[in-house]
C-alpha cells in the first residue's frame, strides 16, 4: 500500500466484499444472495483497480456483473418459484462446512504469513508495472499468449453448443 488513502480505500472495499460474500453464502432468500453477489463482484473490480489491473476491472464489471450475475438472476427467476418464500437453503452439512472452511482459512492464513516472512517479504521486485497497462496487456494477448487465446475461443464455442443442446426444448 503506497499511500494512506489507498489503504483506507482498500479496507473499505475489503469490508464490503467480505460482508457481501458472507451474505451470498448465508442468506435464506436466494434472490437476495444473487444481488449481494453483484455487490461482491463490484468490490472485486475495485480491488483490481487498486492493483493496477484496469482492464481486468472493466472485464470484471462487463462479464461478471453484466453477464454472469444477470444470468444467475434469470435462472433463479426461471426455476425458482419459491424466490420470495423463506425456505431452508442450507443442507445438513452446515457444521461440517463451517469447520472445514474455518480450518482451511486458518491454515492458509498462517502459511501465508509464514511464507511472507520467509520469502515474499524479502523479494524486491525489479520493476514496477507499466502505467499503460491495457496496451501491454493487449500486446501480450496477441503475441505470447496467442495460442491460449485461440483455444479459449474453441472452448467458448463448445460451451455454447453444449448449453444450447441442453437447454433446448424438444418438439416430440
Amino acid at each position: 500500500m503506497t499511500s494512506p488513502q489507498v489503504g483506507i480505500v482498500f479496507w473499505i472495499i475489503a469490508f464490503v466484499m467480505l460482508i457481501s460474500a458472507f451474505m451470498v453464502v448465508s442468506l435464506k432468500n436466494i434472490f437476495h444472495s444473487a444481488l449481494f453477489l453483484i455487490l461482491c463482484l463490484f468490490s472485486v473490480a475495485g480491488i483490481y483497480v487498486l492493483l493496477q489491473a484496469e482492464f481486468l476491472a472493466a472485464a470484471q464489471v462487463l462479464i461478471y456483473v453484466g453477464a454472469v450475475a444477470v444470468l444467475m438472476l434469470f435462472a433463479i427467476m426461471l426455476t425458482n418459484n419459491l424466490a420470495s418464500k423463506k425456505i431452508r437453503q442450507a443442507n445438513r452439512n452446515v457444521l461440517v462446512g463451517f469447520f472445514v472452511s474455518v480450518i482451511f482459512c486458518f491454515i492458509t492464513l498462517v502459511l501465508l504469513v509464514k511464507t511472507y516472512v520467509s520469502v515474499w517479504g524479502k523479494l524486491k521486485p525489479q520493476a514496477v508495472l507499466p502505467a499503460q497497462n491495457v496496451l501491454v496487456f493487449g500486446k501480450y494477448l496477441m503475441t505470447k499468449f496467442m495460442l491460449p487465446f485461440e483455444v479459449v475461443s474453441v472452448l467458448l464455442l463448445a460451451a455454447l453448443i453444449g448449453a444450447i443442446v441442453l437447454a433446448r426444448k424438444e418438439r416430440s
Partner: protein
Amino acid sequence: MLAYLSLAAILFSIGMFGVITRRNVIGIMMSLELMFNAVNINFVAFNKFIVTDSLLGQIFSAFIIVVAAAEAVVGLAIVLLLYRNWQGINSDQVNVMKW
C-alpha cells in the same frame, strides 16, 4: 500485499463454505464464482507485488474470468434441465443414486 492475499484466502474459504452447505444448485454456483474471484485476486496481487516483469498474472485472471463464464453457462443449462425433471433444484432432493 499480505492484506490482499489474506483477503483472497478469506474469500476463498467463504466460497468453499457456500459450496459445502448450499442446497440450491444456483447457490452452489454463486459460491463457486466467489472462489474463482478469490483466485483472481491472488493472481493479480502476485503480479503487482512479486512478479512485475510481465503481466502474466493479469492475463491468467482474464482467462479464468472467461472460462468461469463459460462454465456458468453450461451449469445454468444443467440447472434448467434439473428443474424440468424435478420441479426443484435442491441438491439433496436430486439424489437418486447414493453418493
